[in-house]
């Protein structure tokens, strides 16, 4: 039997392959996002390293030490207020390095006594390791003891231990996937439906035995395929370039797949509802943007929800994207199956609600 779904699917793929803007938004956009944020947060690469410093000493010596670090041309010194708790600052800002110059450091050196710098670093961060060697080199150079054979300065090196804390990129990667699924699917559905309707393509389709559920099945199928292509791209970049820790536990993988499927269904239905609500192309595009754009920022994709003010957190709770992003984080990174199940249920439930809405709002048959 010749399947109409497959015939439509083939046309969908051909259309996609010839539409540079569709390719950009679904494939290039997440890649760019990952590379950009990966570069920012892994801190590696060329240019300067950001060093976070708490100068408890604030002596002539400590100031010239920091000047010399800056003078190497590799280090940006970021001063942290001495009244803050170091560990708290590190946790809150996901820092991978932290240098503490203890009080009395300069005085000890002047008195020809030994002095200890405290450096906390994330051992998995290339930039933190690089900073360590730079600090070591500068300290040696300035060590007054070296002229008298034995060094006075030593570095007390502490590894930052992340028990339940994850790198920013761990947090970010599933968010990018969720974001891509939303953007690509909502926009695809809105623009396709509005275009097909306004150009009379649906009318022409209606003259054939093709049924609306068949059409929809083919389009959703394609969006799901795109969802998995995005997954592979994002994973490829995240894991190989930036060392994101993705769980390879089978349950997690299955849950991730289920979430991608449910998320695609949800946003397909949402796109249908938008296209059904607004008839003209510009209006529909504007509404799609008005829906996806705030979701992008309010769903905790770029920063954790806990960092947002209370009222924004409340808004985030009613945003569908939040649940997809949270669910994917649970399944891909945290291995939190209970959380993932909950989010999967929410996403699936919303998908059903929006599907009903979308079906009512987009009729092929004009009255």
């Amino acid at each position, binding site marked *: 039997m*010749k399947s*109409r779904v497959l*015939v*439509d699917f*083939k*046309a969908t793929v*051909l*259309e996609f392959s*010839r*539409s540079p803007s569709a390719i950009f938004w679904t494939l290039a956009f997440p890649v760019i996002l990952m590379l950009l944020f990966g570069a920012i947060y892994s801190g590696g690469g060329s240019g300067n390293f950001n060093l976070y410093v708490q100068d408890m000493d604030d002596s002539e010596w400590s100031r010239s030490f920091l000047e010399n670090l800056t003078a190497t041309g590799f280090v940006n010194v970021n001063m942290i207020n001495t009244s803050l708790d170091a560990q708290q600052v590190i946790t809150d800002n996901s820092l991978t390095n932290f240098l503490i110059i203890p009080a009395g450091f300069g005085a000890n050196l002047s008195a020809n006594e030994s002095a200890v710098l405290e450096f906390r670093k994330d051992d998995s961060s290339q930039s933190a390791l690089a900073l360590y060697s730079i600090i070591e080199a500068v300290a040696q150079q300035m060590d007054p003891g070296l002229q008298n054979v034995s060094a006075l300065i030593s570095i007390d090196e502490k590894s930052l231990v992340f028990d339940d804390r994850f790198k920013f990129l761990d947090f970010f990667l599933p968010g990018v996937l969720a974001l891509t699924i939303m953007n690509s699917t909502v926009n695809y559905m809105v623009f396709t439906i509005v275009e097909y309707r306004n*150009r*009379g*393509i649906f*009318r*022409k*389709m*209606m*003259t*054939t*035995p*093709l049924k609306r559920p068949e059409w929809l099945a083919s389009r959703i199928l394609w969006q799901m395929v795109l969802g998995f292509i995005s997954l592979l791209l994002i994973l490829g970049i995240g894991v190989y370039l930036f060392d994101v820790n993705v769980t390879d536990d089978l349950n997690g993988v299955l849950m991730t797949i289920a979430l991608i499927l449910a998320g695609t269904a949800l946003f397909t239905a949402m796109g249908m509802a938008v296209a059904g609500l607004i008839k003209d192309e510009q209006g529909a595009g504007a509404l799609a943007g008005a829906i996806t754009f705030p979701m992008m920022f309010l769903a905790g994709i770029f920063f954790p929800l806990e960092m947002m003010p209370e009222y924004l957190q409340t808004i985030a709770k009613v945003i569908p994207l939040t649940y997809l992003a949270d669910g994917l984080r649970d399944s891909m990174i945290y291995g939190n199956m209970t959380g993932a199940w909950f989010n999967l249920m929410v996403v699936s439930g919303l998908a059903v609600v929006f599907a009903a809405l979308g079906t009512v709002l987009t009729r092929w*048959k*004009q*009255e």
Partner: protein
Amino acid sequence: MVEAHIEVKGLRKEYGNLIAVDGIDFEVRKGQVFSLLGPNGAGKTTTVEILECLRTATAGDVTILGLDLSQSSKIKRRIGVLPQGFNAFDLLTVKENVEYFAGMFEEAVDTDELLSWVKLENRKKDLFKNLSGGMKQRVGIAMSLVNDPEIVFLDEPTTGLDPGARRDVWRMVRNLRERGKTIVLTTHYMEEAETLSDYICIMNKGKIIVRGTPREIIKDHGGSPVAIVRGAGDRGLQALSPNFPDCELAGVDLKIPIPNGRRVSEILNTLDNADVHYDEIVIKKSTLEDVFLKLTGQEFKGGEEDEE
């Protein structure tokens, strides 16, 4: 008598308060080219789209190929449709577009043959969006034939086409008729309806106001032929008005309706005797267009506007 392919009785369609189709009856026989004529908004598209199972009627009985409209999926397999203002997938090629629609039917004709028939064999690989209007329309006609339909609906197939492209479409319609297809055509062009149709219904404001073969309609509703004497001016009017009281002056041209039984030579002789100088004489037979203007009682723009 040839079997009826389409039977319509008391068809009505209301959009809210607007009555788009106001209780019409007609019949289309197998193998006929049947035309619906009418000004913008007459209800042509509404009528044919109800027959194509794209819209639902408010009231009335319709039978297509012996089937009730509720059997739409059976009907769709046996009819072909070129919708008004037709469009296809911009980013698919001509061939891909036609194959898409062929793929929607369980049985379909050979798409290459079809494309040769509409003379697009050299444009198969071109994207639809890069085609000219005439070519797009031919793609549409090819698409409407993928399932080898018994009835073909063409809603304004030539609107917006140049005269050459329009004649290409006419050739195709004639060819389809020769192959025994039943064709339902809607058009604004009188000339088109006149040369192609076996039977015409003129619609206005949702009603069929005149019906018949083109000849019958012209005979029954067309006026007498008119002689136009260009450049005859006031002198011509003075010479002719005693014998032809209906004669009137438009600028420097004279328009003289020729009543039954009178001869054109009479006009010529009168003008010669009065020694009136003129540029040329044209005899205009009544056309469907005249009938149309007379019956619909409006300034008809001849379908020059491309709506949709």
